[in-house]
C-alpha cells in the first residue's frame, strides 16, 4: 500500500520505523516539567474559589504566613502593583491572573502560596482565610442575555451586557429562502457539552529568574513555546522581562491535545513570583484543578438541513449559542473567533449555507480550548453529520446512499465550499466505499433488518467528515498578530549526520521520528543519523507550535523545502567534486551522479564533508539551511467512519460491536505512527460520545471535577479499533501530506451518536445529545413509549 522510495535503512516516507524517542520513556528517564528540579526551588499552590460568583471581602494571610516554610501569599492586589493582575487572552479579551474584588467561576485562582516544600505549601493554602460574599451565578447561557442577568464584565469598556460577539458567514436570505422552498427540512438543537482534554500529565511550570543575568528561564508544559515567549514579553515587558531575556523550554510533555496551548493564570503567577523573589518557583496542577479549568466545546447549535424529497441537499443553516465562561480565552486564530466552524457545510455539494454564532459570558471557567479539533471542527462536523443522518431517517433513505448522492465529486477539487473554503483534494466516494467494505455494511444492514423484526435494537452509524487543518496562510491566520508559519533549521555536520530543530513541539506525536523520516526522504541520510530537537526557544527557530494538526502541514513542509535548498547547494558541490558542470548532475535519493555515467557519483555524506573542506571558490561554506514556511492553503483531510452498536432496551446499555475508521490524510510519513494517532483520537472520540461531559448545577458548581466522576475511558470502554486508509495527496503541500491526528476525535462522536440513534429509530427517538449514556437512553425510551 505504501510504496516507499527509500530503503528501510534510510527510513523515508511510508516506512513504519520504530520511534527514536521511545528509550527514555520506557526507562523512566523522560524529562517532564514536574521532573525538573533546580537548586533553591520553591513550590506554589493556588487557593481557589469554592463559589461560581462572589465578591472577595477579605484575604487573611496571617495564619498561612505563620507556618514555617511559607514564604509568601500572593494576591491580586500584590500583582496589581505591577499591572499583572489581568492579562490579555489570545482573542483580545482579558482574563484575571488573580482577582482584586470578584471571582467569576468555581475554582478560579484567588491567591497563591509560595513555600519551601510542596506539602507545606498545601498546608499554607489551607490556612489562608478568604471571606466571600456569594452572588447568584449566571450558569445558563440561554439566560445570559436576559434583562435581569448580572453584568459579568463591567471591567470591559463599553460592555453593556453579556454578549461577547456576533459572527456570521454565508448568505442568510438566500439560505432562508432555499429552506422555505425545500420539500424536506429537518431541524434540531444540538448541544456539544463541555469536556476536558485531561491529558495524563497536568499543566505546570518551573519559572526561574536570575537577578544577576536578568534572565527568566521557564520550563513549561507548552505546545507553543515561542508564541508564549512573545506574549509574555508583551504582557510583562513593562516590569523588565524583555524577550531576549526570556527562555522557554518545553521539555517532554505528557499529552497536550490543545490543553497546553493557553497561558494559564498559574503560569503567570509563578513567573511573577520567581521574578520578585529571584528563586525558581514550581507550580504543578493537581488533577482536580486541571479538570475544572479550561474546557472545550460548549456550543448549542440550532441546525436546519433542507433537501429535495429524494434527499438532495439544498441548504444548511446553523445558529449557535457559544458559552465561553467568564472570558473568551479561546485559542483560535484572531480572525476566526469561531475557529474553522464554517467547515460545517461538510463533505457535500450544495449551494446555500448560512452560519451565525453569538458568544456569551457565564460564570464558568473560561475558554474554549481547542481540544484535538482543529478549532471547532468537531462542533461543525457533529452538526452536519447528525443532520444528514436525521435527513436520511426522515425520508427513509439509507444514510450511506444519501451521502453518495450528495458528496463532492473527486473531479470537483479544488472545491469552493458554500461558506468559502477551498477544499484541496479528496475522493469521498472511495473512502466511504472502503469503510463499507471493511465493516461489511451490506451484511450488517441485513442483520439489522432481521434484528428489528425480532424487536432488537441494532444501529449502524456513519460519519463522513471533511476536516480543515494546518493553520495557516499568513493572509488570513495569526495568533495575537503573529502569523502562523512554521520552521525547520537543518544542520548537516561534516560527517554527514544531521541536527534539525523545529518551531513546533511534540507532546507524543513522534516528531523525533517523523521529521527525521521527512529529512531521510529528502536527503537520503538514514533517519537514525538525524537528531530532531524542539521546544527550547533559545535554540529552536521561531514557530507557532503543535496543535490543530498543523505540524506536518507547516513545519514538515518547511523541512522539505529547507532540505531541497540543501540539495540544490549540494548539487553545486557535487559538480565541483566530480569536475562536471551542474547541469550534468542528477540526484537519486542520497547520491549525486553524472548524467550518463552513474558510476561517477558522490554520496550526500561526501558532499556534506566537502561543504566544510572542499567547496567551490566563492561559495558560502557549511551545509546548513533554515526555512520558514507560510502555507499557501490549509489542508483538508477526510474520512469515513462506520460504527455498529447494539442497545439493550430494558437497561439502555450500549455495546459497540464494530468501529471502522478509514482516514485520508494524504501521503503518510509513518503508517505505524499514523495508525496510533487514529487509535488515540478514536478513544478521545468515544469519550465525549458516551462518557465525558462536565456537569454544572444551578449554582455553577462543577459536579464531576475529579477522575472518579469525569469518566475518561479505560482499555475496557475503548473498543478494538479497526483502521485503514485511502490516499489523496494534498496538491499544494511539498510532501502531499495533510495532517491526521485530529480526524478521529472529529469523526468518531457523530459516527457513534448516529449509530445509537439509529438503533433507537424503531422507538421513534430522533436525536440525543452526547454523551449518550445508558441512563439517557433509558429515559428517552420511556418518554418515547409514553408518547407512542
Amino acid at each position, binding site marked *: 500500500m505504501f510504496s516507499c522510495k527509500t530503503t528501510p535503512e534510510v527510513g523515508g516516507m511510508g516506512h513504519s520505523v*520504530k*520511534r527514536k*524517542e*521511545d*528509550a*527514555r*520513556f*520506557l*526507562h*523512566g*528517564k*523522560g524529562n*517532564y516539567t*514536574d*521532573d525538573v*528540579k533546580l537548586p533553591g526551588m520553591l513550590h506554589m499552590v493556588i487557593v481557589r474559589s469554592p463559589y461560581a460568583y462572589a465578591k472577595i471581602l477579605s484575604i487573611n494571610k496571617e495564619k498561612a504566613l505563620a507556618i514555617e516554610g511559607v514564604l509568601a501569599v500572593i494576591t491580586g492586589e500584590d500583582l496589581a502593583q505591577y499591572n499583572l493582575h489581568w492579562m490579555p487572552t489570545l482573542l483580545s479579551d482579558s482574563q484575571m491572573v488573580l482577582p482584586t474584588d470578584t471571582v467569576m467561576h468555581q475554582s478560579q485562582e484567588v491567591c497563591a502560596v509560595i513555600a519551601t516544600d*510542596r*506539602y507545606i505549601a498545601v498546608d499554607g493554602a489551607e490556612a489562608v482565610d478568604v471571606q466571600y460574599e456569594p452572588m447568584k451565578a449566571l450558569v445558563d447561557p440561554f439566560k445570559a442575555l436576559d434583562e435581569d442577568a448580572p453584568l459579568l464584565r463591567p471591567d470591559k469598556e463599553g460592555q453593556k451586557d453579556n454578549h461577547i460577539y456576533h459572527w456570521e458567514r454565508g448568505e442568510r436570505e438566500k439560505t432562508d429562502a432555499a429552506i422555505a422552498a425545500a420539500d424536506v427540512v429537518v431541524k434540531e438543537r444540538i448541544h456539544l457539552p463541555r469536556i476536558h*482534554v*485531561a*491529558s*495524563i*500529565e*497536568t499543566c505546570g511550570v518551573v519559572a526561574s529568574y536570575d537577578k544577576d543575568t536578568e534572565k527568566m528561564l521557564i520550563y513549561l508544559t507548552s505546545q507553543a513555546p515561542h508564541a508564549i515567549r512573545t506574549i509574555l514579553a508583551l504582557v510583562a515587558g513593562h516590569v523588565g522581562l524583555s524577550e531576549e531575556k526570556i527562555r522557554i523550554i518545553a521539555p*517532554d*510533555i*505528557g*499529552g497536550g*491535545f490543545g490543553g497546553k496551548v493557553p497561558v494559564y493564570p498559574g503560569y503567570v503567577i509563578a513567573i511573577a513570583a520567581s521574578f520578585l523573589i529571584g528563586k525558581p518557583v514550581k507550580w*504543578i496542577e*493537581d*488533577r*482536580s484543578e486541571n479538570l475544572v479549568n479550561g474546557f472545550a466545546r460548549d456550543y448549542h447549535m440550532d441546525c436546519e438541513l433542507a433537501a429535495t424529497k429524494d434527499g438532495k441537499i439544498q441548504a444548511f443553516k446553523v445558529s449557535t449559542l457559544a458559552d465561553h465562561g467568564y472570558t473568551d480565552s479561546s485559542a483560535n486564530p484572531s480572525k476566526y473567533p469561531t475557529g474553522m466552524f464554517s467547515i460545517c457545510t461538510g463533505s457535500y455539494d450544495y449551494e446555500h449555507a448560512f452560519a451565525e454564532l453569538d458568544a456569551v459570558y457565564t460564570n464558568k471557567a473560561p475558554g474554549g480550548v481547542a481540544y484535538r479539533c482543529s478549532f471547532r471542527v468537531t462542533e461543525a462536523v457533529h452538526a452536519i453529520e447528525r443532520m444528514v443522518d436525521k435527513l436520511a431517517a426522515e425520508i427513509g433513505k439509507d444514510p450511506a446512499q444519501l451521502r453518495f448522492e450528495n458528496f463532492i465529486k473527486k473531479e470537483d477539487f479544488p472545491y469552493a465550499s458554500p461558506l468559502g473554503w477551498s477544499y484541496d483534494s479528496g475522493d469521498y466516494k472511495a473512502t466511504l466505499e472502503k469503510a463499507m467494505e471493511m465493516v461489511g455494511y451490506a451484511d450488517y444492514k441485513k442483520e439489522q433488518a432481521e434484528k428489528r423484526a425480532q424487536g432488537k435494537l441494532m444501529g449502524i452509524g456513519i460519519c463522513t467528515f471533511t476536516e480543515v487543518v494546518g493553520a495557516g496562510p499568513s493572509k488570513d491566520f495569526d495568533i495575537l498578530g503573529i502569523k502562523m508559519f512554521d520552521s525547520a533549521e537543518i544542520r548537516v555536520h561534516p560527517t554527514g549526520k544531521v541536527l534539525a530543530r523545529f518551531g513546533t513541539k511534540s*507532546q*507524543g*506525536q*513522534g516528531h523525533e521520528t517523523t521529521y527525521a523520516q521527512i529529512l531521510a526522504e529528502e536527503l537520503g541520510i538514514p533517519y537514525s543519523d538525524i537528531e530532531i530537537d524542539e521546544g527550547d526557544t533559545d535554540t529552536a527557530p521561531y514557530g507557532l507550535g503543535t496543535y490543530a494538526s498543523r505540524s506536518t502541514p507547516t513545519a514538515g513542509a518547511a523541512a522539505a523545502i529547507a532540505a531541497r535548498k540543501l540539495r540544490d547547494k549540494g548539487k553545486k558541490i557535487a559538480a565541483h567534486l566530480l569536475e562536471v558542470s551542474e547541469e550534468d548532475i542528477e540526484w537519486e535519493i542520497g547520491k549525486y551522479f553524472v548524467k550518463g555515467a552513474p558510476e561517477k557519483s558522490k554520496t550526500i555524506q561526501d558532499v556534506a564533508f566537502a561543504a566544510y573542506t572542499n567547496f567551490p571558490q566563492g561559495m558560502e561554506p557549511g551545509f546548513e539551511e533554515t526555512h520558514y514556511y507560510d502555507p499557501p492553503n490549509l489542508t483538508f483531510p477526510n474520512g469515513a467512519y462506520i460504527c455498529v452498536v447494539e442497545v439493550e432496551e430494558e437497561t439502555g446499555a450500549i455495546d459497540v460491536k464494530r468501529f471502522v475508521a478509514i482516514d485520508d490524510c494524504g501521503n503518510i510519513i509513518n503508517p*505505524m*505512527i499514523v*495508525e*496510533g*494517532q*487514529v*487509535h*488515540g*483520537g*478514536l*478513544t*478521545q472520540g468515544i469519550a465525549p460520545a458516551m462518557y465525558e461531559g462536565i456537569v454544572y448545577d444551578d449554582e455553577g458548581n462543577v459536579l464531576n471535577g*475529579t*477522575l*472518579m466522576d469525569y469518566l*475518561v475511558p*479505560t*482499555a*475496557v470502554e*475503548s473498543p*478494538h*479499533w479497526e483502521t485503514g486508509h485511502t490516499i489523496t495527496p494534498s496538491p499544494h503541500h511539498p510532501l502531499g501530506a495533510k495532517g491526521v491526528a485530529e480526524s478521529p476525535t472529529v469523526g468518531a462522536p457523530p459516527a457513534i451518536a448516529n449509530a445509537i440513534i439509529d438503533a433507537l429509530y424503531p422507538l421513534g427517538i430522533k436525536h440525543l445529545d452526547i454523551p449518550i449514556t445508558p441512563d439517557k437512553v433509558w429515559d428517552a425510551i420511556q418518554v418515547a413509549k409514553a408518547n407512542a
Partner: protein
Amino acid sequence: MGKHNVTMTINGESVSAEVDSRLLLVHFIRENLDMTGTHIGCDTSSCGACTILIDGKSVKSCTYLTVRADGANITTIEGIAADGTNHPLQKAFHDQHGLHCGFCTPGMIMRCIDMLETNPNPTEKEIRWGISGNLCRCTGYNNIVKSVQQAAEEMSKEKEASV
C-alpha cells in the same frame, strides 16, 4: 508531627530515610530518591501513572504511605532491567508502538509485570480488564494490548527455555 525511620529495598538496593508520616510513597520515590520515572496524573487514585511494585504486586504509590513501606521490596520502572537491556515489556512497547507521550507508560508497564505474573497468557479481554486501573489518553489502547501480547509470548518462551 512524627518522623519515622524507614528502610526498604528499592530496585535491589537498600534505602534508609527519615520521613514524615504523611509523605506519600510516590513523592518519596520522585523527590527524596530523585527517581522521576514514576509519575503523578491525578489525586483520586484513578489514573495509575504512579504504579510501582511492592513485593511484586502492583500498587498505586500515590495511595501508599512511605512509612507503611518500611521493610518492603519495591520495584520501579528504573529497576526492571539492567542498564543497557530491556525487559520484554519495554521491548514490546517499543516494537508495537505502545506509547506516544510516555507519561502513563512506566505505570502501565509496572502494572503489566504483575498482570503477566498472575496470568501469563491473557486474552485480549483479560488484558484490557487487567490494565483498567491505568489510563492512557494518547494511544487508544489497541497497541498497548498488542505490546502485552508480544511480551506475554516472549516471556512464556523464556520460561519454557529456562525449564
